[in-house]
């Protein structure tokens, strides 16, 4: 069993990490690095989605603010030939 050097993790958390690491067949340290990598990727993706959401908001408002364009569902229906 690998020795963790990160301070402050509770025994409960360590047990959970050990269980996950065992399940995935890798060391606890390697698993911890993977978990942190995944968390960072999720955070980056969330930030990217937030930025693009604001760009979309601005683009929607640029075309006749408050005026709706044709329903895309109807356009898709036509594109698919209706049936």
């Amino acid at each position, binding site marked *: 069993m690998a020795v963790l050097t990160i301070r402050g993790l509770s025994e409960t958390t360590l047990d959970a990490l050990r269980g996950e690491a065992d399940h995935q067949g890798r060391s606890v340290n390697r698993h911890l690095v993977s978990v942190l990598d995944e968390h960072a990727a999720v955070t980056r993706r969330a930030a990217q989605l937030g930025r693009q*959401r604001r760009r979309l908001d601005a683009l929607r408002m640029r075309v006749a603010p*408050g005026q709706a*364009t044709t329903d895309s569902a109807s356009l898709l229906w036509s594109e698919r030939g209706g049936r």
Partner: protein
Amino acid sequence: MAADSPVVVDAATVAKWGFNETDSATALRLFDAWAAQTLSLRAPDVLVAELGSICRRKVRAGEVTADHAQQVHQVLHAILPPLVPSEDLADEALLLASRHDRPFAEALHLALAIRDGAIYVTADERMFRLLAPSFSCVQHLEDVAV
């Protein structure tokens, strides 16, 4: 259908994120829930072609300029949900399309929803009325609780 089921979206719902339409706010709630990771979105890769077609039709109708459509299209492409290769769904989709006399692209979405135990969200009332009686996984955009 479980409350935490994944959601299959089509190009119309994605287009509503970028173009101002009557139900854009509802579609954006779906996007926001996905961005907040409270639900999982996915789509067959045919969405790319259909999204491009929707953008082209909006330009052709004179509702937006080609430049504007291009900008929206670029942003939408940066935030597409995970795309599933159509080839993984094609056999089942053809069965569904033939059996229910539906367009193949629509059947790809249905096949993905059935395979993944997902909800297939459509903003099209006609499509919803045609599919919902046979497929409990089909929900109207307005009825999706997020």
